[in-house]
């Protein structure tokens, strides 16, 4: 492995300063489950690694009346071991409980999953359907970017020199909100999504009519995809199997998959439709549970 410096940062400014100095030759270390594998495999060389886990904002997870803050380096287990987070943010919990095995969940974070910018990242689609905003710190202060606009191509993000992801802001779900994430993999655990779909709905007070919906797709394009038309098609509709099926057909159209060792274009398009139906049904069911 190319030798790198290790900097244990304790403040946001310290992280920004190292990243500004080294540019692309430095990366943040959260759980390390992607970055250490990539550096070891020779994917890229680094001169410095900044361990951000000593920065309080990056390890903080707390809720107030407006929503949830999840620090960029908070490991998956802290999400699914928190009962309130489990009940309010079910789509994100679906993903946090299926990323890797227990060993990986001890370390891997949603922030790392997003910054790795893999099209197949399990947590990004559910973050999108939960209307999540990414909070970025940099030399010019902080800025906010919707998660759906964060990844620009495989492995690439909107982060500029000196910038890093501090955490996420997720709005408190409305009454009658439900969300779900599912993926297709050829075995039960420990695999990379062939396709993943996250869905969320807000129902009206009758619990029958959809007020708004969001559908996001993983592993079927160069970045996670927010299937805007598919979600919008449900607004004002009764949550019937027909409406759900029509939305799933639109989601299928929004996918632009490639052929690789994990699946063909046709298989992936088919899976988008199937998983959209399943996650919408699950989201509706969860919205009706109080």
């Amino acid at each position, binding site marked *: *492995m*190319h*030798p*790198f*410096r*290790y900097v*244990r940062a304790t403040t946001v400014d310290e992280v920004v300063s190292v990243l500004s100095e080294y540019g692309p030759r430095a990366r943040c*270390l959260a*759980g*390390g*489950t992607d970055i*250490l*594998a990539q*550096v*070891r*495999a020779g994917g890229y060389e680094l*001169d410095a*690694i900044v*361990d951000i886990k000593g920065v309080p904002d990056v390890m903080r997870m707390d809720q107030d009346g407006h929503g949830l803050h999840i620090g960029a380096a908070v490991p998956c*287990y802290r999400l699914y071991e928190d009962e309130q987070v489990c009940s309010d943010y079910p789509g994100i919990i679906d993903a946090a409980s299926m990323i*890797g*095995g*227990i*060993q*990986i969940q*001890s*370390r891997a974070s949603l922030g790392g999953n997003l910054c790795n910018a893999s099209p197949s990242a399990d947590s990004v689609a559910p973050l999108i359907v939960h209307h999540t905003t990414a909070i970025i710190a940099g030399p010019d202060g902080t800025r906010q970017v919707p998660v759906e606009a964060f990844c620009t191509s495989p492995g690439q993000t909107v982060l500029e020199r000196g910038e890093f992801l501090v955490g996420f802001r997720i709005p408190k779900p409305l009454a009658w909100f439900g969300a779900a994430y599912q993926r297709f993999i050829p075995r*039960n*655990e*420990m695999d990379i999504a062939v396709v993943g779909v996250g869905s969320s709905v807000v129902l009206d007070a009758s619990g029958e009519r959809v007020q708004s919906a969001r559908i996001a797709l993983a592993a079927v394009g160069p970045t996670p995809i927010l299937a805007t038309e598919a979600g919008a098609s449900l607004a004002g509709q009764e949550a019937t199997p027909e409406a759900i099926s029509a939305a799933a057909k639109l989601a299928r159209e929004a996918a632009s998959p490639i052929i690789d060792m994990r699946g063909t274009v046709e298989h992936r398009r088919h899976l988008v439709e199937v998983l959209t139906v399943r996650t919408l049904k699950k989201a509706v069911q969860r919205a009706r549970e109080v």
Partner: protein
Amino acid sequence: MVLDEVAKVRVSTMINGAPMELLLAPYQSLLGTLRDTVGLTGTKEGCNDGNCGACTVNLDGRIVDSCMVLGVEADGKRVETIEGMATPEGLHSLQQAFLEEAALQCGVCTPGFLVSAKALLDKEPRPSEARIRLWLAGNLCRCTGYDKIVRAVQRASEAGPERS
């Protein structure tokens, strides 16, 4: 940048209950630290990229793949490895159960399975078979087909309070 230009980092850690002061290269993994610097070779290297779980250790109460942790990250933390499992009085009940159920063949994955399974039983003394299989999904075995391993964990679980 050449190797000599990267300063080594002083690390204070606790390994199997013993305090240790180490001087580590920043890019050395916790796995490499345990095996090459400390000399605890019970923790095995399998894939070295976070897939197989052979290098599983317990870091501050959570199991991790030690190949995916930098040694310097153990500063101020407690590390427990396979070497810390048996006592002078005898094997841990999981180790005994692995022997009795013949839950190993080549043995490379075994330390990782034992450290993982111990973390499960410490947390949940009576896990279901499904729970055991899910918990151990991050540990791969290419010899046994898993059934014997799962049975061994069940057997140790049934040993209950007598577990050491």
